[in-house]
């Protein structure tokens, strides 16, 4: 365990000046209103990125994403958010390319964490990345028509660019585009398609380059080489994730993650939605920790509202912040017990540890339900606060004290939970699992990810910290009231499955510690407002960009939002991108699995703790 004090970093402006001195005209500060960082000439992008990593300490690429500025300069822009693992704010690096022949050099050799993110930009925006060794579609299937995140690409049920649609509001005569679709379905075929195009090429590229023959002899023992598809329907993949695995006997030779089976177009829908309409959608990203997803999005939009000095906006009150932290840390607890329970499931201890975990989860969910109205999809936070104060009383069905009491005073309920029930549960779980022989033999030394590799691959959250890197957004780039709270950043040493397990156990203890600091302050602030703003429907005025990041239970969750000035644009995000920890943490999966047995893949995947709603978005 180590406590990490963020080093007071050079400000972004200073950094921009330093870069300009060194690279001259290649680097220009981004001077559009409310935009940050530098725009780099794309021919020199790799040089600048290498210098940033090697000479200035920006070793961590948090997010890389593309924006389509159709009608605003008609170019694509790749946006990179670079951080130092020693802490401090971001340096935003951008590179632009014309829309017709869109190419930007790949940064995979500088930060290998760019791998999946560049593939995503290729898939959804159609930008080519020369230098990328494996540039193919990642979320949609090979053969799909077009690049759906481009602004001029319209989906089958397209009605208008922005919600609320004119024909629903305010007049309310409803005409839905789906009623006019000749197929009666959500499909759209390219113009000029012929029946000869009706064939499926989506599977071919997964097997490209793999030697498909069996009976290949290896060394002394004759083993067969096999290609096994694990998933998309497989009980161990925690959803609809698929891995194409080449096996020599039982040992993993190559592993290719295949995703997109739950790609439900979060970002495209998000760009049609008004700002506040995205809040319930963020619940459905990492659907186990909806509260902290809300928090990240609220931070991103609040930041943008501050930049624009929106009238009527006021920052969250103290009580609102306290309630947010209460919810977020409880969510972290829920997420970690869930993930440990199911890690044990993957180890073969079928369902019993998970049942222990679910029992505690239900009790917390009862509180969430009382506060927000829903067990899982809480939709609780708002820009400038939370939706509602926590209720006076809870009618909980779960049995907290004994069979009879079903109607609790909320603070009493929370006190029992925070000071007795959850700490006791941790000790019990600890006693049952931590020195358990099965856990030790199956987890120690399995799925090792060294620290430098974890940083290069942009791993985040417990995966990064288990590899010995004390990087926690709550400390490294603090937000909300975390600076006032006392807690430790838990790290591991070996970066194996067991360390990830230990880090999660430790973080649950820290969460309880935080909750115990928040609880008395909640009692003190009773009666204060939780929402200071005038209206729920912000208009962004002059536009701009903003990146809101939080330490989600699964890792760093970031929201990159861009707004364009003008009456037609400022109600909706122009670009809405989610930096999903579950997605980027998978970059290291093959590295971790190579050389291990098939049964270990399941465990390693379980220890990364992915949720498909977030991986595929």
């Amino acid at each position, binding site marked *: 365990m180590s406590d990490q004090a963020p080093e007071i970093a050079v400000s972004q402006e200073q950094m921009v000046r330093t870069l300009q001195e060194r690279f001259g005209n290649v680097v220009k500060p981004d001077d559009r209103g409310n935009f940050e960082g530098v725009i780099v000439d794309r021919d020199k992008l790799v040089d600048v990125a290498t210098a940033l990593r090697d000479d200035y300490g920006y070793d961590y690429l948090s997010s890389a994403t593309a924006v389509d500025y159709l009608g605003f300069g008609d170019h694509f822009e790749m946006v990179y958010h670079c951080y130092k693992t020693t802490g401090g704010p971001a340096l935003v690096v951008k590179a632009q390319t014309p829309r017709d022949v869109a190419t930007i050099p790949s940064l995979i050799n500088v930060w290998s964490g760019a791998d999946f993110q560049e593939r995503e930009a290729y898939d959804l925006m159609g930008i080519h990345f020369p230098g990328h060794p494996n540039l193919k579609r990642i979320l949609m299937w090979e053969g*799909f*028509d077009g690049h*759906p995140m481009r602004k001029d690409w319209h989906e089958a049920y397209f009605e208008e660019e922005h919600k609320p649609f004119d024909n629903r509001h305010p007049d309310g005569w409803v005409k839905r585009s789906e009623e006019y679709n000749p197929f009666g379905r959500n499909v759209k075929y390219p113009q000029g398609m012929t029946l000869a195009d009706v064939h499926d090429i989506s599977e071919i590229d997964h097997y490209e380059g793999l030697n498909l023959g069996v009976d290949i002899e290896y060394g002394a023992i004759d083993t067969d080489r096999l290609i096994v598809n694990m998933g998309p329907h497989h009980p161990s993949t925690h959803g609809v994730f698929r891995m194409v695995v080449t096996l020599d006997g039982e040992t993993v030779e190559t592993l290719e993650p295949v995703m*997109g089976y739950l790609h439900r177009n979060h970002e495209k829908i998000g760009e049609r939605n008004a700002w506040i309409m995205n809040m319930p959608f963020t619940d*459905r990203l990492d659907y186990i920790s909806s509260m902290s997803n809300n928090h990240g999005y609220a931070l991103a939009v609040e930041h943008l509202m501050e930049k624009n000095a929106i009238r009527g906006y006021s920052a969250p009150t103290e009580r609102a912040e306290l309630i947010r932290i209460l919810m977020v840390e409880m969510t972290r607890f829920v997420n970690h017990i869930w993930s440990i329970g199911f890690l044990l499931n993957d180890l073969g201890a079928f369902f019993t540890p*998970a049942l222990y975990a679910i029992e505690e989860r239900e009790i917390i969910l009862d509180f969430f339900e009382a506060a927000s109205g829903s*067990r899982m999809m809480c939709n609780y936070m708002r820009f400038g606060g939370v939706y509602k104060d926590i209720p006076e009383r809870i009618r909980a069905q779960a049995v907290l004290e004994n069979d009879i009491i079903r109607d609790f005073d909320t603070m009493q309920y929370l006190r029992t939970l925070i000071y007795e029930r959850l700490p006791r549960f941790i000790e019990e779980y600890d006693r049952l699992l931590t020195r358990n022989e099965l856990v030790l033999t199956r987890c120690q030394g399995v799925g090792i990810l060294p620290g430098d590799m974890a940083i290069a691959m942009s791993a985040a959250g417990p995966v990064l910290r288990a590899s010995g890197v004390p990087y926690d957004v709550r400390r490294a780039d603090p937000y909300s009231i975390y600076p006032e709270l006392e807690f430790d950043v838990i790290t591991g040493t070996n970066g194996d499955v067991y360390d990830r397990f230990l880090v999660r156990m430790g973080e649950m203890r820290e969460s309880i510690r935080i909750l115990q600091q928040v609880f008395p302050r909640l009692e003190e602030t009773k009666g204060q407002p939780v929402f200071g703003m005038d209206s729920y429907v912000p208009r962004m005025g002059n536009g701009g960009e903003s990146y809101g990041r939080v330490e989600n239970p699964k890792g760093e969750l970031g929201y990159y939002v861009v707004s364009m000035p003008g009456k037609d644009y400022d109600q909706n995000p122009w670009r809405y991108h989610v930096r999903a920890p579950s997605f980027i943490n998978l970059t290291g999966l093959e590295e971790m699995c190579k050389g291990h047995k098939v049964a270990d893949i399941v465990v390693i995947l379980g220890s990364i703790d992915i949720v498909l709603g977030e991986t595929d978005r």
Partner: protein
Amino acid sequence: MTTGKDHIDLRELHNSEIPLPDGLQNNVALTTLSQLYNWGRARSTWPLLFGLACCAIEMIATAAARYDLSRFGMEVMRASPRQADLLIVSGTVTKKMVVPIVRIFNQMPEPRYALAMGACASGGGPFKEGYNVVSGIDKFIPVDVYVPGCPPTPQALLYGLITLHRKMESSSLNNINSVPWYGRGPSDEIPLPILGPDIIDPRQTEILRKEIESFNASMQEMQAEA
């Protein structure tokens, strides 16, 4: 049929039209073969261990201790479609995923049932307009029960399952048309969708052909005008 055990309540099996002497009420049941058959099937429905999205989490919560699916004889979730009776479609069905789902459904032996859990599986839900989302699994496989909600609470799912049990109990061996599997021979396989430029349902090729023809005709007209 007699039994001394308490935990099988023979009264629920007994055909109420036939009167029984008082002393025999919980020891003897007179019933029809259909009823006996359906009773057995409804009380040991094995769902497929198959989660899709957020709704799957609530499905797991339903199976856990608090809501306890095993009260209905359903706790044996099978990971193999060959051993499962019930497909709970628990989440958003994407175009990419619908191909495996149809394949899995085809692999399930009859009698088989499908339950659409949540708004997404029933009709597309919040993600309906997405380019990769199928607006409801019933476009591809026949659905027996729809459970609304986003996600449905475990109680709602349980209610859906009880509704399904009722449906099972109402099918009859006498009427071979009441359900496909009481007829002769297996029912037809559902054709696998094709992932072309967009998803193509082989059952819709006729419409597709017509669309292409009308498009070509309009192109020719435009050329003629020009």
